[in-house]
Structure formats: C-alpha cells, structure tokens
C-alpha cells in the first residue's frame, strides 16, 4: 500500500457507489535522486565540450578549475530542470509541466494511454527509484517520461492509470500467476543462439570517443599502408586462429547481451478482469517491467531461426498498439520457449494457436516465375559466361543460383491458413515467421497486383494492422488472383462477424471471445 495521493484505499470494485471524492491533486516533483543522476549525466557532456579548451590551457590547476566550473554548472542545470519539472495526477489525466526556457505543459488523458513501462537502470535501483514511460501511440518518443520517481509511486501510478480510477487494488506481482519464466540454464541456452558482433561496434565507438579527446588517432590507425601491412600478416595460420576467436567473441557477446536483457524473465498475468494484461519483467542491470494490455495486442508472431527450430525453440511476441517504436511496436512475450509453453500465453492473450502444417494453403507453382526464375536465368547465363569467357563471373553465377534455390525453398514455406478466429501467415525458410492475425484486428484489407503478377494471374493480399512494422508486413505474396479476391471478401465478412461479437462481449464484460477447440499437440505449421 502506498501513500501516494492518487491511490484510494477502497478494496475491490465499487458498483453503483460513487468513489469518495479524491483529494485535490497537487503537482509533484521527481525523486530528489534524479538530481544526482542527471548531474552525473550532464557533467561528462560539459567536460566533453570543455575538452577543446583543455587543449588551450595548460597545467593541472586550470584543468581542475574547469572541472570544478563544469561540476557547479551541472548542479545549476540539474536543479533548474528538476524544479521546472512537475507532474500532476488527477482522476482522469496526468499533466506534465517541463522546460526551463521553453516551457511545456502536456496533458495525457488516461483513456489515450496505450502502454506504461517501468524501467530501472542500475543507478535507479541503487536509489530505489524507477523511470515511468507513458506511451500514447503519438509520434513523440518521450511523450510521457517520468525519469525518475520512487518505485512504489511508479507502481501505484501505473496501476492507477491502467484501471482508470475507482477500483484500487494493490497489485503484487509476486502473487500473479506465472505464465512463462526462464531459468538461468534456459537463459544461457538461449544466449548461445544470439550470436552478435556487437562488440566490434562497441570497440569502434570507444575508439572514436578516444579519438575525439586526441588520445588515439583513427586516421593514423586506419590508413592504406597499415591495411597493406595487415594483409601481409593475414596468412592462413593467423586466419585459422583469428576466425574462431571472432566467432567465440561473437557467441560470448551474444550471450552477455541476452543475459543482461532477459535475466530473470518472468511473464505473469496482471490485473483484474476489467483490464487483463501480460506483465513482463526482465533485466540484469536495467530492470524493466512492461504490461502488455491484452486488448491492445493486435497480432501474435512466432518466429524461430533454423538451428533453434530444429531443436524445438521458438520466440513469441505481440505487436501492440502504440508500443515502443524502437522495437517496431513488438513486445516479446517469450524469448525462448517450447511450443507447448506458448499455449497458455496465447490462451491468456485470447489468440488461437496455429493449425498444423497440413492445414496451410500454399501459393501456386507459377509463383516460382517470380520467386526463383529470374535468379535462375541470370545464374545460368553467368555460369555459361564463366565457362566461355571470364571465370570471375562464376562467383556471380553461384550467388544467383543460390538465390534461386533460396527462393524455391522459401516459396515452399510461404502460405496461409484460415482459422476460426484468425488468419495465419507463414513466411521464411531460414528464419521462419508465423503471424497470427485475429480477424477483428484488421485495419484495412488490400489486394494488389504488379505488372508481372498480372501476367501470371497472381496477387498480393495484405491485412494491415495497427502497429505493424513496415519492414515485416504479414503479406501473402503471389496468391492466385481469383483466390486473393475471394479470400479478401471472406476476411472482410469475418472481420464484421468477430468485431460485432467482440463488441457484444465487451458490453457484457464477459471474456472477449469463446475458447477455441483444443487440438492435439502438433507442429503448428512451423516445421
């Protein structure tokens, strides 16, 4: 129980009785520890700007003086920002006032809030504070950040916003039923699949920063003579040593990244029946807590790389409305799980599980004219040229033939299935993706035909949804044109059917949709 001014003491819902008039909300400031954290963030920036002067002045005395000035200015800035930042939480909205010179007053009605995340970085954890990110689905990235307030306040605020007002029930995430959790062994296992060469980028970034301060010179390090000398060192033996080292480093850094991000991963059912959601907690240094409201979940995505899939591991994420744009509006619900472990999560989120592979309808054979034939033709021509004219073209030929083979393999896996409540779209040969699009989540439905598609009587069908990433749209490419038109018409009819059903269910405040028929365990179209 918190003593924050917006939490009421009522237990459970209060039907028909108006809630006691809440006390007049007062503007509040951020946690005082914010001053220290912000100061720690500002001073290095100031010093970085002052580094140019450090080159002019000499002697430690003057450098120390500069550092002292930077420290004091940092205190001033941090204090001014802290004093100017105030937020007021009332029954239906939060008002955030900020800005020292350019003042801003932002009003966020709770009804517009899509997502609330609580994030705790290392320093925040030392002070017992947290950063609250309120997302509204607008374009601004930091539209409602409270960085930072006391953890208890953050939780209370989140619960307050999520359930509107009137119903106050302490949410103790420890008591919530766990839907998915990862042991350390599982986490380690999953890290092995997340090969990453991120450390190279980190090394480069560090070097670049050092170069800024004149400690190392990038120009001196990376010049043609050095590259030539380096190529001289690059013998077979050094390659044999270096390549495994690079791979090992990649595995280790992937492992480190995965452990730092997914440590203590726990997905629980959150809240009460009025606003059910999935609460995800994870992180080693930066603890993050996100609640995915089930009503906001638009599309489910099950994906898996080639090796992980062979061993039976899958990743489940939900595309939500107004989620973090950095991740393309996608929230991971289970990063590394067996298919059977996804079942309770999907059931909780009111998503049907995919049907078995045999239920998927594949795109026609003539689509290969688009998926493989162009590469095959170029590849054949290049191979012929390699034998007849210039052997160097053989490399291009091989690449093109590989592309043709890949296109054929991908063509075999591309397809869709029409379930009782959702459309399933599968794509990808190496990395397999399977989208689960409930009929009532469609925004628009479109069928398009390019010039080549028209000749081949093919068409692309897209069910557009809210929060979809432009890069990975669940398109069904190269369906038979007549089939695409027919399917689009059926999807539109199913959209209206399920939408009115969802509305009736919403009015009755009953569970949103009837449970699906349970199928025996199978490959769910992912093999």
């Amino acid at each position: 129980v918190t003593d924050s001014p917006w939490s009421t003491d009522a237990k459970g819902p209060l039907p028909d009785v108006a809630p006691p008039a809440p006390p007049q909300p007062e503007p509040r400031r951020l946690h005082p520890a914010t001053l220290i954290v912000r100061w720690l963030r500002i001073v290095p920036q100031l010093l970085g700007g002052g580094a140019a002067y450090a080159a002019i002045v000499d002697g430690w005395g003057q450098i120390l003086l500069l550092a002292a000035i930077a420290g004091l200015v940092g205190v001033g800035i941090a204090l001014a920002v802290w004093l100017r930042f105030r937020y007021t939480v009332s029954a239906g909205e939060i008002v955030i006032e900020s800005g020292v010179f350019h003042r801003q007053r932002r009003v966020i009605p709770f009804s517009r809030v899509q997502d609330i995340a609580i994030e705790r970085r290392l320093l925040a954890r030392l002070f017992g504070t947290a950063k609250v990110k309120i997302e509204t689905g607008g374009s601004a990235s930091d539209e409602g950040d409270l960085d930072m307030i006391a953890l208890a306040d953050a939780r209370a605020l989140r619960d307050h916003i999520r359930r509107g007002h009137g119903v106050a029930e302490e949410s103790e995430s420890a008591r919530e039923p766990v839907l998915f959790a990862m042991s350390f062994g599982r986490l380690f296992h999953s890290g092995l699949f997340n090969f990453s060469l991120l450390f190279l980028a980190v090394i480069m970034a560090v070097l670049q920063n050092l170069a800024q301060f004149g400690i190392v010179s990038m120009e001196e390090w990376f010049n043609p003579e050095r590259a030539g000398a380096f190529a001289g060192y690059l013998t077979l033996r050094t390659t044999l040593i270096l390549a495994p080292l690079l791979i090992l480093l990649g595995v280790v850094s992937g492992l480190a990244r995965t452990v730092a991000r997914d440590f203590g991963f726990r997905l629980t059912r959150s809240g009460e029946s009025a606003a059910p959601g999935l609460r995800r907690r994870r992180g080693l240094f930066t603890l993050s807590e996100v609640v995915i409201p089930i009503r906001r979940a638009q599309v489910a995505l099950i994906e898996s790389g080639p090796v992980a899939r062979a061993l039976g591991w899958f990743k489940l994420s939900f595309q939500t409305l107004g989620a973090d744009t950095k991740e393309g509006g996608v929230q991971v619900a289970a990063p590394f799980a067996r298919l059977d472990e996804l079942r309770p999560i999907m059931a909780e989120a009111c998503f049907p599980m995919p049907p078995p592979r045999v239920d998927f309808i594949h795109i026609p054979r003539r689509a290969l004219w688009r998926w493989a034939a162009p590469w095959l033709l170029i590849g054949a021509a290049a191979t012929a040229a390699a034998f007849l004219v210039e052997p160097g073209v053989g490399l291009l030929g091989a690449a093109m033939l590989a592309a043709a083979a890949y296109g054929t393999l991908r063509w075999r896996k591309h397809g869709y299935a029409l379930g009782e409540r959702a459309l399933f779209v599968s794509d990808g040969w190496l990395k397999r993706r399977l989208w689960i699009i409930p009929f009532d989540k469609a925004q628009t439905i479109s069928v398009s035909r390019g010039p080549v598609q028209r000749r081949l009587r093919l068409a692309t069908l897209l069910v557009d949804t809210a929060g979809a990433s432009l890069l990975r749209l669940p398109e069904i490419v190269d369906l038979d044109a007549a089939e695409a038109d027919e399917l689009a018409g059926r999807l539109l009819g199913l959209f209206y059917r399920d939408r009115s059903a969802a509305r009736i269910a919403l009015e009755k405040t009953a569970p949103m949709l009837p449970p699906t028929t349970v199928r025996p365990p199978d490959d769910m179209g992912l093999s």
Partner: protein
Amino acid sequence: MQTTAWPTDSTLSPLHPDLVWVMRIRGLLAAAPFLALALVLDLGPLRETPVPPGIVPGAVLLVALVLLALLPSRRYRAWGYREEEDELHIGAGLLFRARTVVPFGRVQHIDVAHGPVERRFRLATLILHTAGTRGSAVSLPGLRHDEAERMRDRIREKIRQDLV
C-alpha cells in the same frame, strides 16, 4: 450490415471526369521546372555546342505533352471506388493495381483536402486515416467537393455510432 463481396473492376464506380484535367494541370506544373531548365540550357551553355537551337526544349516539351496526353486518362481509368454501408472500397494504381477496403469503424480521422487546382474544378480528395501501417492514409481523389463532404459527414456519423 455486412457486405462481403469483393469488388472487381466492373463494380467500381469511376471518379469525376474532370480529375483527368486536374492531373494534366498538375503534370504541367511539375514539368514546368524541367522546361525552364531546358530553355536556360538552350540559351546559355548549349550555344557553344553544335546542338541546333530549340532542339532540347522542343524534345522536353514533346515528351511532356505526350505523357500528359496519355498518362492522366489511363490513370483515371485505373481509379474507382464503391461506397458501401459500412466500408469504402478503393481501386487505384496503373502499374501496381491495388484494391483496398477501409471499414468505417477503423477510421481514426478524415480529411477533405482540395488544392488550388482541384478547387478550380470544384473537386476534392477524401483521405481516410487508420491506425494501420501501410494503409494508414487511404486517399480518394476526384470527388465533387460537396460529395466528398457528404461522404465525410456520413463516415463521421458511422464512427460515432461505432463508438457508442
């Protein structure tokens, strides 16, 4: 209340024929800078080369006129729409033909836009914004202005009913 028929080309109604002229004038305005550039080149640097005067601007003008004569009418024929009880069907695109259906319940907000050229012909463009990604703004040009406003009002009324 539900309409499941997916429109094929024949069932879409055409836009206002004046849209062809709107597209032509717009095309002319878009071509103007190229024409001006060709004229400047013709009077300036090209005089020092053996290219006879008038050839370059003439060629640019010819290409522009041919494109303006052919493309707008063909693009116009590719457009079409059908207003249903609960949704709007739109057909568009000459090279990449697309049919899109926007259920009114999914519309977030509606714009009726009319630029200077459209205003002269008393035409307007209806733009439906949804929460989707690729279909986040679906526009339908070439409507009579009063017709666009009538459609907007009707869709707005639909959204209001949908919210209740």
